[in-house]
Structures are given as C-alpha cells and as structure tokens.
C-alpha cells in the first residue's frame, strides 16, 4: 500500500504535485527521469552502529596545535577515504559508496556507510591524518578531491576544512594525497584567558567540503559522527550528569538516497541545484532498519545528514500516536536544562538534537517508530513556513524500535540542570558590530548581499574576540535555507524582530551552528570569534545550494 507521500513523489496524488507540474511544463523531462528506487521491505535489517575510531602510534604531523594544548593527552588517528561496497538493505546487492575508514580496520572489514565515530574529550587534543584513496579516474557524480570539515568544532583555520586551495593556504587533498588535521579541543576563549567550559558541543560530525561538489561527495557517503565528552557529560551513566551511556547512547544519522535497479546511487544534483531528495530513507546508512531496545532510558543523538531534506522527527507507537521525550542538547551542546515532554524535533540539514527517551513504560513486544512528519516535495524545503510547517497526515517510518526483555536496572537519569551558561550580557550585545547578510536568488543563482561570492576575497573581516551581531536575512521567496557558520556557535537573539521563543533557541538555553531560516524571514544571532584567525566560511547547508555558491568567506583578523 503506497503512502500519500510516495504517491506525491510519483505525482499520482489527487491533484498534480509540484514535481508533476514541473515535468509537464518542461515537455519531455519525464523520460530522462530515473525510475523510483527498488522496493524494499521495511525493518528487516538491524540498525548499524558506526564503530568508534581507534588510536594509532604518534607520527610527525604537518599541522600545528595551539601552545595551550594539553600535549600529555594527545592522541593520533588515521582515516582512509575510499570507495567501497556496502549493503544498504538485506534485499539489495551492495552499493558502491565513498566512505571514511579507520586505518586500523582492514578494507574488507568495514561495511558501514558512515565513517568511524570520533570520541573527543575536553582538552584532549587529536591529530587526524586523512589519506585520500578515492579513485583518481572516477566517472560519475562526485569529485575525488576532498577536504574534511569538522562540523561544530572550534579549530584552527588550517584544520577546519576550507573548501578550496587559495593563495598561500592549502586545503584540498587530491587522490593519493594526505592532510593532517589538528583538533585542540580547547574551550572557546582559551587564548584570551577566559576559556568558557560551558561552551562545549555534544554531537558533532565531519564531512567533505570540497568547493562546488560537496553535495555529490557527501551523498556518496563522506560523513561520520564526532561525539564530545567531559566531566559533566562523561559517557558513563554512573558519573557526572548520569546521562544514558554506552550501548544506550545511540547516534542516528537520517539521510535520504535514490537507487537504480542495481542498487547503485542515483544523483542529479550536479545539474539541478534546487536540492536533491531521495526516495529511500536511511538511518546510519541502512534503509529503514530496526533497533532492539531494553526497557530503560536511551539517549538518541539525531543528526540530519541529508543533502536537502528537512526532518520533523517523532517517536510514535504503532497507531501513530506521538510519545514524549526530553530534549537535552542541540548543536551547541547540552542545554542549560532539559526541555521535557517534547514530541517533535524539526531538523534542517546538518542540525543535531539529542533526546532521552524512556522505554521502561512499554511492555516487551511493543513496536515504536521514528518517523518523519514534514511534507517536502522539492529542495525549497518543507511545505508551509517557519511558524507553521505543514505536516503529513501520516508520517514516513524511518526506524523501528523493538522493546524486548523484562525490567532492567537503569542508573541513568536526566537531571533538571544540565549545563547552565550565562546569557550574553546586554552590554556585549549593545556594543556589538552589526552586519547583515541577505541571501537572495537572482537570475537563477544565489547571491549574498547581491554578490556572487569569490573565496579568494572575504565578504567580511571580523575582529577577533569582539562581539558581533549578524542579521541573516532570507530574501529568496519560498525557499528555506539552513545557514551554517563555521568556528563558533550562534546565540539566537531574534527571529523576525521578535525575541526568539522556541524552547531550544531561547537565549540562555541553547546555541546552534545551523540556523533554520524560513521563507522570507530573518534571524539575528550573536557571536564572538575568540581564538583562531584566518579564513572560514558560512553557507547554506542545503548542499546543492552551497554548491551553487550560496557560501561566503569571512576572515577573523
């Protein structure tokens, strides 16, 4: 039985979908369109969990850590970027993907789409050597040159994964080349004598960032998780805040893909830059998998790793009734206090939210589902606007949760206070340098403040350690744009002139590194770029928009 959403995708729902209208108006577009992905039975394969990366022996590195780094705790890792085969669903043949692999794992032993998961700890630096072994003579979408962006990290410009080589500044690895990245994992403000231990992330990720081709490269599989722990969020549910840990702390990356009849990836986002949507829903690289859960609390770290799809995530029972969870973190790390009783998490591409869900109240045999309730037909974003997105009557089920076993001991908890941090002092906001960046579509291309951006020229020179208020304005009609600013978290001050009132955005409660900019709306955010100087970028994280130059360089000076 086809769901309404699938009918919409096929253009068969009552009335004509936007896609159908587009095809009709194009006279002949339809013949070239690939057929839908092969059918697969939902929930027959287990949820893959990407393995945690293991250390390698120290090596002389080509990058430099800041002098404040705690070298006594320095660890080294090696990552291979390569093409490999993975099975996205038990009923499908294997799919050729591009992926990251821990160099300690043999090539044939790594059958996961997502790269290995990094575990970072506060003030314990990492040096990561990436080796590009992608096929030099690759034919098809994607380009085998790569840079690695540590998304959510507070890192030197040389290690941030700038999208392109610019004069005097190397960033790109061609096939056969390597690049060493230095991640100090120091608290922001460390260089000013005002290190802020409350400004720590929780769930981050890393992915390709090569100029013009990030969309196809990430779609081929170049992404992985980076989780962060410290003395509060310890990774051990018997210490610190006692958040669910270990086997009960599960990263979930939500992505969509489209496959041909041989289960190979289909992508036309190199030509069509509106934003690519797939018709298969993947969690951790598997199409509609299942997860067996015990009757206790779990932490789910939800990442929207899709190119252009927005997710409105719910946990529902068999009848579609939403079940409440506690929201504990966004991109900017743990909230000051949990937001309890939530039942919807809207994530734009690249956004993350951590939740805790308690299965203790469900008897063994219960089936629950992560589902996506947002309605989206093209790369413009979900239907509706930021205040009132439109929801599907019945969501698309992404992951089945199978409750098994009897009552179990659960030492974890979600305390009423997580990681409090001070609101930005009014004086800082008052004296902040104000800038406006308006994102518009003109003559079929994206411009920022009316200009096509050139990464050899910064759009702004930002003084280090000075307060900044950026007004991010979406003047592009019916489009949504998730705007990602590298290097520091954004504090949301105002949305459309009003004080931000979303529970996860209220100032003093949360920070983000991707801002959801709804159609014809604007957001004011506060920053202080405290430590690292040099070139960084901000851009739309709908990856096809980014590849169509919806990106700008700013230099911290």
């Amino acid at each position, binding site marked *: 039985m086809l769901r309404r959403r699938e009918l919409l995708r096929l253009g068969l729902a009552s009335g004509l979908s936007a896609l159908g209208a587009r095809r009709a108006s194009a006279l002949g*577009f339809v013949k070239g369109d690939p057929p839908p992905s092969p059918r697969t039975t939902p929930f027959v394969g287990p949820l893959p969990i990407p393995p945690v990366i293991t250390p390698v022996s120290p090596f002389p590195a080509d990058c430099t850590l800041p002098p404040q780094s705690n070298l006594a705790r320095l660890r080294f890792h090696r990552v291979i970027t390569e093409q490999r085969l993975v099975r996205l669903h038990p009923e499908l043949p294997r799919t050729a993907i591009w992926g990251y692999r821990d160099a300690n794992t043999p090539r044939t032993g790594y059958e996961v789409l997502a790269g290995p998961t990094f575990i970072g700890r506060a003030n314990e630096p990492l040096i990561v050597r990436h080796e590009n072994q992608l096929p030099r003579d690759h034919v098809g979408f994607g380009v085998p040159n790569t840079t690695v962006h540590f998304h959510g990290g507070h890192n030197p410009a040389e290690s941030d994964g700038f999208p392109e080589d610019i004069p005097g500044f190397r960033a790109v690895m061609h096939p056969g080349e390597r690049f060493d990245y230095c991640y100090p994992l120091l608290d922001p403000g460390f260089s000013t004598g005002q290190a802020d231990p409350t400004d720590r992330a929780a769930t981050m990720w890393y992915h390709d960032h090569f100029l013009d081709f990030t969309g196809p490269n990430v779609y081929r599989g170049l992404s992985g998780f980076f989780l962060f722990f410290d003395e509060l969020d310890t990774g051990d549910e018997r210490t610190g805040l006692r958040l669910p840990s270990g086997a009960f702390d599960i990263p979930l990356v939500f992505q969509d893909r489209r496959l041909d009849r041989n289960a190979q990836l289909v992508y*036309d986002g190199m030509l069509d830059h509106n934003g690519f949507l797939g018709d298969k829903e993947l969690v951790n690289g598997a199409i509609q998998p299942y997860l067996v859960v015990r009757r206790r609390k779990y932490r789910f770290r939800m990442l929207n790793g899709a190119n252009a799809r927005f997710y409105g995530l719910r946990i529902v029972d068999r009848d579609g009734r939403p079940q409440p969870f506690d929201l504990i973190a966004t991109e900017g790390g743990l909230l000051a206090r949990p937001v309890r009783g939530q039942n919807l998490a809207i994530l734009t591409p690249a956004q993350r939210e951590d939740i805790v869900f308690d299965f203790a109240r469900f008897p063994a045999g219960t089936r629950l589902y992560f589902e996506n309730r947002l309605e989206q037909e093209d*790369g413009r974003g979900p239907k509706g606007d930021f205040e009132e997105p439109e929801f599907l009557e019945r969501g698309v089920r992404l992951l089945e949760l199978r409750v098994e076993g009897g009552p179990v001991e659960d030492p974890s908890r979600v305390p009423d206070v997580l990681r409090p941090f001070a609101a930005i002092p009014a004086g800082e906001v008052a004296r902040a340098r104000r800038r406006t960046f308006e994102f518009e579509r003109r*003559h079929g291309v*994206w411009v920022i403040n009316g200009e096509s951006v050139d990464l*050899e020229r910064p759009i702004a020179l930002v003084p280090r350690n000075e307060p900044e208020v950026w007004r991010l304005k979406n003047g592009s009609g019916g489009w949504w744009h998730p705007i990602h600013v590298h290097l520091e978290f954004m504090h949301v001050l105002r949305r459309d002139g009003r004080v931000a009132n979303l529970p996860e955005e209220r100032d003093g409660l949360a920070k983000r590194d991707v801002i959801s900019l709804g159609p014809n709306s604007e957001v004011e955010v506060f920053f202080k770029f405290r430590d690292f100087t040099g070139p960084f970028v901000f851009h739309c994280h709908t990856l096809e928009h980014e590849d*169509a130059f919806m990106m700008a360089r700013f230099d911290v000076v």
Partner: protein
Amino acid sequence: MRPVAALVLAVLTLGCQAPSGEPAARAAAGAEGLPEAAPPSSFVPIPDVALVTHEGRPVRFYSDLVRGRVVVVQFFFTDCQGICPVSTGRMRELQAALGERLGPEVSFLSITLDPAHDTPAVLAEHARDIGARPGWTFLTGDLADITALRYRLGVYDLDPELDADRNQHAGVLVLGNEPRQRWSMKPATLSVRPLLAALERTLGT
C-alpha cells in the same frame, strides 16, 4: 493541454540519448571483490535534441556537441537587455583567458531562449559582433526542445512565474565534463578568475 497528454507527447517526440551505464553488472571486480574503478553511476541522460548552429548546421545536442567534451553552456537571447550582456561578456573574457584551449579542450555552447527571433542568421551576426572564435557555437531550435534541455541542465525556476521570465535563465553558466560525467553551475556574475578555477575543477586538473 492536459498534463498527462503533454507527457505522453513528450515521450513520443523527444529523442533522448542515455549515457547511463549498467553499474553493478559491468563493474570490474578487483582482487578483494571491490570495483577497481568507480562503476559508472546511473546518470540522468542529457537530451539529444536536434538544434541548428549559427552556421546553419543541423546538430544533435548530446551526440554532436557534448559527448566526449568539456563544455561551458549558456542560455541567452540576442535581444536581451538584462543579464545576457553580463554573461556574454564573461564568456568573452573566458574565451580570451583560454586562448588556444577553446575548441580543442573546451567548447562554448550558447543556446537561445528566443528561437522565434534568433534564427541561424541572427545568431551568426551576433557571433561576429561579439568576436566569437571557432569553438564557440550558437544554437537555435524548437522552443520545446530548448526548454527540455534547459530543465535537464538545471537552468529553471521552481516558481512558474519566475520560470516564464527568460531573463531569469541567462545568469548561469553550466560547466560540464561529459567523459567524467561531472557538472557544475556558476553565476555568470562571478569574475573570470574564479570562473576559470571552477572550470579547472570541472576538468579535474
């Protein structure tokens, strides 16, 4: 015309050349059972529509102009007072910067959005006026074919009102490397240095 009828008509009338491969089946297996090179990913075909050049030569878009080549594609019209002079000016700068590489290494394809007016003779005069050298081809044809081509190359707007405005489609340069099946899109307002850099990324050098 009702949409369904339009689609059927389109399928009947439009010749499409499919450069898509048979990925998994044809991928050569390496020593570890992994493909040595990337299997040719199934790729959406470039329409092989019939067009006419400014020299009056009938051509097929895919098989005669794109297959085996690196191309810079521009949509424009000779009567355009808006963005077209900017994008044409940029292509002239690119022509100068490429020098002898234009033709043997990179082809320029400028496709009119106004075929009723832009006949081969009008296009030939335009080519002379702007100093286009061999390697830069101006193309006209049936509007429906040109529209299908424009959509497939990603030069369209999801908003039907904007899509109906020809000026909206003339600010983009589409860069293509057909042997590598590698495509990208650049604003024509970009200066020539980053455009050349983008072309080099598309060439893969």
